[in-house]
């Protein structure tokens, strides 16, 4: 469980399931009012960190609040040791993550401060591939400085991941499969030359593969254990 890696067969099966869900998803989305398009995480979101004293919520969100019903994607990546948003963004841009997405919000506590603050990130994503997928990650850190400090991990940036399907075409749009993008970015980080510990840090945000009850276009999937990427 701790070292679970998505296999090609599993990925193909999931793509098939997503494909079959397409028409139903479109109908469901058209039938729903915007108010009902809230995403409900499988678990109650909580503040986590490797060691602290800074911590961050284990899900980002559509809005700057802590509601379980407005969570967007689980955090799946921890860039550590000497990470910063500028540095990570620059390096991954060279691997194709050069487009911007829509903003999401990450609650956090910086240092030993008690007040919850929110970082906003549009993240970066790739161009659409032949399956009409683009791969999107959003990195988070305190807004002023773009990195946390953790006594065990050093300078840290955390990220959520997901696939955007059909954003570049007129087909039914679907989003999700965070785990798959986590592994993809881990591969990219290894290609850059950074060391990667796959599925290493439990962030207590496991999401069984399923469509969200309120928004079937939102496909949850995460094993709850983040991949750590060491940035030199």
């Amino acid at each position, binding site marked *: 469980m701790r070292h679970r890696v998505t296999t090609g067969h599993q990925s193909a099966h999931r793509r098939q399931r997503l494909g079959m869900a397409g028409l139903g998803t479109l109908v469901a989305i058209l039938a729903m009012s915007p108010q009902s398009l809230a995403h409900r995480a499988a678990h109650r979101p909580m503040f986590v960190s490797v*060691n*602290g*004293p*800074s*911590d961050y919520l284990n899900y980002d969100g559509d809005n700057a609040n802590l509601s379980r019903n407005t969570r967007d994607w689980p955090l799946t990546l921890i860039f550590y*040791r*000497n990470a*910063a948003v*500028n*540095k990570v963004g*620059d390096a991954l841009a060279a691997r194709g993550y050069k487009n911007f997405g829509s903003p999401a919000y990450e609650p956090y*506590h*910086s*240092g*030993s*401060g*008690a007040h919850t603050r929110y970082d906003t990130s549009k993240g970066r994503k790739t161009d659409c591939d032949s399956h009409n997928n683009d791969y999107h990650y959003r990195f988070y850190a*305190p807004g*002023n*400085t*773009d*990195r*946390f*400090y953790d*006594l*065990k*991990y*050093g*300078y840290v940036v955390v990220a959520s991941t997901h696939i955007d399907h059909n954003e570049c075409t007129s087909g039914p749009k679907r989003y999700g499969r965070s785990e798959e993008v986590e592994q993809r970015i881990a591969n990219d980080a290894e290609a850059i030359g950074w060391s990667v510990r796959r599925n290493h840090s439990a962030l207590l945000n496991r999401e069984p593969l399923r469509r969200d009850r309120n928004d079937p276009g939102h496909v949850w999937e995460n094993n709850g254990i983040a991949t750590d990427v060491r940035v030199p």
Partner: protein
Amino acid sequence: MVATQPIDHDGLRSLAQLGHPALIVLSTRTRRSRAIVFRLPRHAAQGPSHWYRVRLHFRADVSGSGQGFGYVNVITGHGVTASTEFVTPRRKPPARMSWNTVNTAGERKYTATRRVVDVDFRNYIVESDVSSGIHRLVFQLQQYRGLRFRRVAIRADSGVERTSVSPYPMTLRLTASPPAGGASSVVAVLANTTTKPITGVKLLAMASKNAMIVGPRDVRWPSVPSGGRVHKAFSIVARYGARGSVDVVGASSKGVVHARLKDIPVVQAPAPSETRGDRSSSWAPVGVLAGCVAGLGAIARRRKLRGSRGAPARELDTRS
């Protein structure tokens, strides 16, 4: 030059005291300093009594054309312990340049139109780099895109420091006392290490599977003053085995802290009725429910068997 004296008392051990009285000058050409050796004493670790941190004091002259970013880092072995990020804008001077520092206390951001700035801050060394023996301190520059460091002068009053100030707003220590009076005792002491009172303080204790807490498992205080401490003794008895562990969580307006004490000697509960009293109240409804379900199940099985086989009840009793 090897520093033979370990850093075994509170205070700063400057670069001058570590054998490097002169400025350390880095630039785009020389991006990494030579290693400066320091020694930590036996049993050195990050907390709970003593903490180690670095002071980074330097003057940076930033040049370059166009947008970019760069870092002045202190490396203490496995990784970067203190770092300052500089970000230059797309436009040329006098456009504002920004720089920031992040440490355990939080983050600070500064902006200025000038390109020569002084930076002085402290940060706690990453845990993996604090251990007894010889360590190496290295200063490093990293620069990306258009930013260039023309000159960075590391002051001799930078260095390594030992302090008793914790980076955490609260500390929690557990100590076990030997079994006495039929129970072991674990004393939890929560201290406020900040300069302001912390409010809504709560301690909650949980025992390992083979043990249980006797009496209240949680306690609350409305506030703890700056530098103040609160304590609570939890009594623990064994259900089986001779050793157990206790987890205590402290929560307050400043966050959460956790401590665990393993392998505590615990004694068996003196009388089952006394020790189960605390648990029976919360588990009683479950027991009653389970009893009802078991009873109904037995009746149903008996009727089913009686109907299918027509055997007398006495025989069924022996089979079941």
